[in-house]
């Protein structure tokens, strides 16, 4: 834990604080159907045209049921659209590498994953997807799924801020305005900035370059017809092959990376994601990428404060997020910096920490910070391999996801998830001030508790339930079941961690992976795809129901006897609730995975 790391961290926090208020104020205008922005001269006509094409009256608001229906229909249609593109990419345009059509299960998994802002990637981008699939099939979701998330958060915040109101906004208006006024403009500039750092943006076929240090490796020998040559025992015959060239993927990278980060999507253009030199060329690009992950989620807390006319509440929510974030960074950083005692015995310098799976360019601190940020938010972009973290260093990303990704969280998703915890915290502790629980003047009644409980149940049910299923069948856990070919590469506690991480990541709509797991199998693609859909829509529906219920309520006047939802006390309470609910739900599972691993690692076991 170096001084250099501390300075960078301070810089990061300062920059985050700096963007929170201005961006929050801008969000206030964007999320108001009649809000005025400096982009009106350019964007207004396009916005109006969009409404005309969609046959939407921007003045007409929707109740929560119509809002939900619109959101579900939109998501379903766009998911189907992406599925179709992936299945047909071999016959569509912009496919210079002649990529084949994507398989049914992988197309389902990918379409579900991108529609839900998860961007779990069971495929290797540069060797599976055509330019059209990347740009239209996938990158479009990067914008739209992010806009959906922000819209839902805005609808919930409106539900809290309004009273005696039937409506919570208009989904189509929210979606359109967020895309046109927020995501597209920022990304246009952001992409150019990234290009200035050396990120590529082109439609060229892949490059081939000569290696400065050619090397030799063993590959299976093939005969003239391309069939593998087998020895008498039936094993493939190996031959030496000199490798002196490398294929370098090309493509429209910067435009996709900008929204990948800003929209907390996380789906990399290249398989190595933000560890790839093109996707993350410089320290500045690394810094900006981390900042852009948290920018909108952080600004949304300011938006919340403004909307409910209680900026203290907005900052209390921000602070609660920050406290857990800080804890995560420190724990992960500490254990990564401390390294692996087994490596130390092999002669690795303890001062270098656990560098396995990390880019030397980023080092311990920036890898730990990036890992914490990307899992706090439901981003899932990575600049290091979480699978290679020390057990406790890797527990941080896993737990972050399992807490519901409410630590700033995905764009919109983080705030609406956190607000569910706020409702629960207020409900449990609210009684202790001697009143029936109320949140910003709204009584929390059985219906609200039912919806909030439902959200928590979905999280636990999907992560723990799917993981349990995976542990018990031959497709999910071939090692344990004695099968040979696919599934996890590790067994025992670490293999379990990989399974748990996969379902946590998908349910949490994160998309990062404890690699290791060979997830591109029909069974994993199907169940992980389902987990992303559960984790998104089974949560959004009750959340919108909650928004509708809160909007309908009358407001109770506040007084000295009102439960305080701002200040350090409330922040502490909120942090406690998030940690307690998360810990109580996932502690047993975690103790079977990373926690056992930790003790075993220190006792000299390896995986």
């Amino acid at each position, binding site marked *: 834990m170096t001084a250099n790391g501390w300075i960078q961290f301070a810089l990061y926090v300062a920059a985050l604080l700096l963007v929170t208020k201005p961006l929050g104020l801008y969000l206030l205008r964007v999320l108001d159907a009649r809000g005025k922005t400096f982009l009106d001269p350019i964007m207004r006509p396009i916005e109006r045209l969009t409404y005309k094409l969609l046959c939407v009256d921007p003045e007409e608001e929707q109740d929560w049921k119509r809002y939900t229906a619109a959101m579900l229909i939109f998501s379903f249609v766009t998911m189907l659209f992406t599925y179709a593109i992936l299945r047909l990419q071999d016959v569509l345009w912009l496919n210079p590498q002649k990529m084949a059509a994507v398989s049914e299960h992988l197309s389902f998994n990918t379409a579900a994953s991108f529609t839900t802002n998860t961007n779990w990637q069971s495929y290797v981008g540069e060797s599976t997807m055509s330019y059209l699939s990347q740009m239209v099939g996938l990158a479009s979701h990067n914008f739209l799924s992010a806009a959906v998330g922000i819209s839902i958060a805005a609808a919930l915040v409106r539900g809290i801020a309004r009273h005696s109101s039937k409506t919570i906004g208009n989904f189509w208006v929210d979606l359109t305005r967020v895309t046109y006024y927020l995501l597209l403009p920022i990304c246009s500039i952001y992409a150019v900035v990234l290009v200035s750092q050396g990120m590529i943006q082109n439609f060229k076929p892949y490059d081939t370059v000569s290696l400065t240090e050619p090397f030799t490796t063993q590959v299976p020998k093939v005969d003239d017809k391309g069939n593998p040559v087998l020895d008498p025992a039936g094993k493939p015959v190996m031959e030496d092959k000199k490798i002196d060239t490398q294929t370098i993927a090309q493509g429209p990278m910067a435009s996709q990376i900008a929204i990948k980060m800003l929209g907390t999507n996380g789906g990399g253009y290249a398989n190595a994601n933000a560890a790839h030199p093109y996707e993350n060329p410089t320290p500045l690009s690394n810094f900006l990428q981390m900042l852009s992950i948290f920018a909108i989620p952080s600004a949304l807390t300011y938006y919340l404060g403004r909307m409910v006319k209680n900026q203290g509440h907005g900052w209390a929510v921000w602070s609660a997020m920050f406290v857990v974030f800080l804890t995560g960074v420190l724990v992960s950083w500490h254990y990564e910096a401390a390294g692996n005692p087994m490596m130390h015995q092999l002669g690795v310098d303890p001062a270098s920490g656990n560098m396995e799976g990390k880019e030397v360019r980023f080092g311990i601190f920036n890898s730990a910070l990036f890992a914490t940020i990307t899992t706090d938010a439901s981003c899932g972009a990575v600049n290091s391999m979480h699978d290679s973290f020390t057990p406790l260093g890797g527990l941080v990303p896993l737990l972050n996801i399992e807490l519901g990704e409410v630590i700033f969280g995905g764009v919109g998703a983080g705030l609406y998830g956190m607000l569910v915890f706020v409702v629960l915290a207020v409900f*449990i*502790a*609210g*009684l*202790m*001030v*001697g009143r*029936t*629980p109320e949140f910003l003047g709204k009584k*929390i*009644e*059985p219906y*609200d*508790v*039912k919806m909030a409980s*439902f959200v928590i*149940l979905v999280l*636990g*049910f999907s992560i*723990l*339930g799917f*993981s*349990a*299923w995976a*542990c*018990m069948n031959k497709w999910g*856990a071939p090692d344990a079941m004695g099968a040979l070919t696919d599934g996890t590469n590790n067994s*025992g*506690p670490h*293999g*379990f961690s990989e*399974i748990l991480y996969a379902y946590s990541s998908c349910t949490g709509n994160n998309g990062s992976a404890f690699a290791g797991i060979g997830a591109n199998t029909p069974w994993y693609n199907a169940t992980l795809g389902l987990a992303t859909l559960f984790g998104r829509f089974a949560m959004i529906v009750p959340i919108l129901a909650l928004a509708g219920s809160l909007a309908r309520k*009358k407001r*109770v*006047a506040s*007084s*000295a*006897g*009102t*439960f*305080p939802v701002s*200040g350090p*006390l409330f922040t*502490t*309470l909120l942090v*406690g609730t998030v940690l*307690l609910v998360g*810990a*109580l*739900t996932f*502690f*047993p*599972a975690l*103790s*079977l995975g990373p*926690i*056992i691993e930790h*003790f*075993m690692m220190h*006792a000299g076991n390896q995986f």
Partner: protein
Amino acid sequence: MAAKTHSIFDPTIIVPAIGEAFKKLNPLHMVGNPVMFVTEVGAAITTVLMFTGTEGASFGFLLQVTLWLWFTVVFANFAEAMAEGRGKAQADSLRKARTQTFGQRLTSSGGLEQVPADQLRKEDVVIVKAGELIPGDGEIIEGAATVDESAITGESAPVVREAGGDRSAVTGGTRVLSDIIRIRITSNPGETFLDRMIGLVEGAKRQKTPNEIALTILLSALTIIFLIVLISLKAYGIYVGVTFSITVLVALLVCLIPTTIGGLLSAIGIAGIDRLVQKNVLAMSGRAVEAAGDVDVLLLDKTGTITLGNRQAAAFVPIPGVSEQELAEAAQLSSLADETPEGRSIVVLAKQKYGIRGRELHEMLNAKFVPFSAHTRMSGVDYNGESYRKGAAGAIRDWVGGQLPKEIENEVEAISNHGGTPLVVAMKNKALGVIYLKDIVKGGLSERFERFRAIGIRTVMITGDNPLTAAAIAKEAGVDDFLAQATPEDKLALIRKEQEAGHLVAMTGDGTNDAPALAQADVGVAMNTGTQAAKEAGNMIDLDSNPTKLLEVVEIGKQLLITRGALTTFSIANDVAKYFAIIPAMLLGTFPLIAPLNVMRLQSPTSAILSAVIFNALVIIALVPLALRGVKFRPLGAARILRRNLLIYGLGGILIPFIGIKIIDMIITAVQLA
């Protein structure tokens, strides 16, 4: 009053409660409480598994775990039975007030028949004479009488009840002291206020309040989550290579689901209503008690609540030509036979201010006293050939023959305008002057209102006085606001306005024209002396008819909610320690390396699991007194109360089980139970 506080350890309540606790094991009863139902099912499963020999643990261990799981359920039932038992004890003492009375029912032919009180139906008409008990709740339709209501209210002074107006309601079990009255019975047997109340405290007719329903939903959700956690844990065990026995999984499940609050929830609710009964307030529903906690505006009638119900003589105002001394003398003489507090205050004032010594009635052998009565609204004496009278202006006007001097009329009007009550004194058919009766603000009220301000409750005084008088009294009493020259319609409008602005309003009332406001208010406390209409409209009845008690009602409501919240927080916070006890114990067999996670250094896996289960069961019993008595209420702002309670029940809830489980572990290891 008959209802009294029972000690927590009163054996007459504890012993039957133990029996009840076992009777309540009936699954049909348990299913209403999801958390405890899951516990019972878990206990049943381990009971069966004990004999299958598949659990891979010693029979002694399985037996102990199973027994403690059953105890957990029994303890929770015991808590509920205790609360109900205390409620029953209250109810029984209430019931005594009205056993075995008979009523003289008017038959259709016009005759009378003697019927037991419990056979009287609504709309029956009974006649009650002096010395008899009133057989049921009803309304006087004819006559007036003095009634001794001490059986219900504990107040020994008899009260006047008369047909028509706001004082026509009578309660079953009270005794008529004078006159004959005709009463129309207003409730069927089993439907009287007392019956409803008894139903509530006994728990039989108790409905869950919205907040209890919401809490039950949350507790059920937590229970489902832990079910998923435990079932999935079994599956993970298969993958990682650990075998978890079902008994241990059930034990962990029961420790994790919120049994503490699940077991005590209904006891807390019953105890809250019970505490109200101890204050002689009958709540018509548990919901009303909760609403009392939420109230943030109190509408307080000036008379009886802020000022003493009775005004006191403050000055004698003679007409020109009469000295104050003369007037005082006459006023004193005419008030000797007036036993009302107002009358007594006149005698006191005459003595204090004018040195007129008190006369003993036996000194005045030839005097003929005219006592004050509700009919004449006048009292006096014929003494030494003179007749003295004092009374309401109208009554004296009639007595002197229809005309009062202009000065008197002016003075009467002036005093009325200042919010006082004028009484006219006359001698020999000639009016001498006016007694000024004034409101006296009750002691200690302004401190009390200060406490309410601290917890965010605003007090509004309602009075028929003019704004000037109202402002003066409001200032003296320390209320936040007042509504002067208020008609019942104004009161209703004010409640609506406050509610519109998001406030929850509590008020007291007794008159028929209070009924709409009582019904509109979130908490409407009707005075027992009030009319039937008022009692029907309110959601609480104060048997003592003491409007100041509204303040206590609010405190009891808050206390109930705080207790519920505190124990919920405590219950959930407890889980942390239980994980640290049981999870290492479950894994230690396969992964001995996990030993450092056993932070409590518990002796062995079996003792760890057993200790956690025992702690989980015992904590329910340990918290029964707290659930029944309620957390102490302090008049602090919400933030301070929250900080305090979070420290005690949140942080305490995390730490205490670490200590408790460790101690239990040491004990059971010492006595070699595990």
